[in-house]
């Protein structure tokens, strides 16, 4: 019994437990997602976050203790963000050819995503920190979290809002655009990437290769533009 207590003391102090558990939970969530036909609401990130929150709450573990282990995974977000340049550079030819329509559609979509969230959130009386955390919701998580940190929101809240935005876009995107009579895979894909980042892009790839490529392009470009746009709008409106 004494030995068991010693083992527990060791486990509690090492980052090993929560690091291993994060990987296990994510692996299981991914298996679940694949087995059940990639149903969007079973998004592995969403399922993993919910499962880990339940485990932490049930064991009374503070988030700080969990993060001591999980930070090794979190650290890789930085280099992964840098790596987004690689698929983007793969689209360089398309980008040169259609740079003008792409730049205009990107600006229109990016401003709509941020300004409509700002206006609606304000009208519906969102708390200012919730509102700030929501502004970069359409871009990929590492960028969105960096932006939120800079403007004084809550990066962990942003991480969850971004994932929920991606899931929303993936679920409603293609049916909505089809309903409005849009058939062009390029416009569909690009819009999915601009409004719903990586999760939207994954969905666009299921639709067609071409839509997926343009979605990746939209996601990368909007990431960069939103990082500039959000601090500017926050400054302009004095939030």
């Amino acid at each position, binding site marked *: 019994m004494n030995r068991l207590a010693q083992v527990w003391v060791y486990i509690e102090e090492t980052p090993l437990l929560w690091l291993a558990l*994060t990987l296990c939970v*994510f692996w299981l969530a991914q298996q679940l997602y694949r087995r059940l036909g990639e149903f969007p609401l079973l998004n592995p990130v969403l399922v993993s976050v919910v499962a880990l*929150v339940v485990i*932490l709450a049930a064991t009374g573990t503070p988030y700080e203790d*969990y*993060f001591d282990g999980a*930070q090794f*995974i979190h650290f890789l*977000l*930085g280099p992964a963000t*840098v*790596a987004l*340049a690689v*698929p*983007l550079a793969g689209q360089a030819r398309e980008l040169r050819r259609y740079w003008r*329509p*792409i730049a205009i*559609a*990107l600006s229109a*979509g*990016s401003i*709509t*995503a941020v300004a*409509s969230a700002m206006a609606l*959130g304000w009208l*519906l009386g*969102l*708390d200012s920190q*919730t509102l700030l955390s*929501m502004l970069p*919701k359409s871009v990929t*998580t*590492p960028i969105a979290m*960096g932006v939120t940190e*800079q403007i004084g929101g*809550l*990066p*962990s809240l942003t*991480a*969850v*809002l971004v*994932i*929920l935005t991606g899931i*929303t876009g993936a679920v*409603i*995107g293609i049916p*909505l655009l089809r309903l*409005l009579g*849009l058939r*062009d895979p*390029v416009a569909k894909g*690009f819009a*999915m990437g*601009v*409004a*719903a980042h*990586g999760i939207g892009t994954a969905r666009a790839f299921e639709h067609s290769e071409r839509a997926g490529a343009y979605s990746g392009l939209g996601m*990368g470009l909007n990431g*960069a533009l939103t*990082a500039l746009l959000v601090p500017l709008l926050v400054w302009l409106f004095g939030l």
Partner: protein
Amino acid sequence: MIGSLATLLLFQLAGEIVVRLTGLPLPGPVLGMLLLFAALLARGSAPRVFNDTSRGLLNYLALLFVPAGVGIISHLSRVADEWVAIAVTLIASTALAMVVTAFSLRALTTGRGE
């Protein structure tokens, strides 16, 4: 592969340093991404191992969001208080952004022999 990882980290480091020196309103890794994008365009093509390592890392991108996402545990009461406004804002704003982007691009590219 070590060289590729080192390259990614060095671009991130360069981004972080430039952001701190200039006070640019950008996250360091995002500037790192833009710098790498410019470098890849200037160079024409990257070594295959570099592309493979980068894509390998991006294959696990979803996993990397999990530790930060679990941080929601510190904000559960905030979400419980504001979930209706959060849901309406999020869904309406995402739908609007998507429609505006898609129709702008279509309007600007029709008749270009696509």
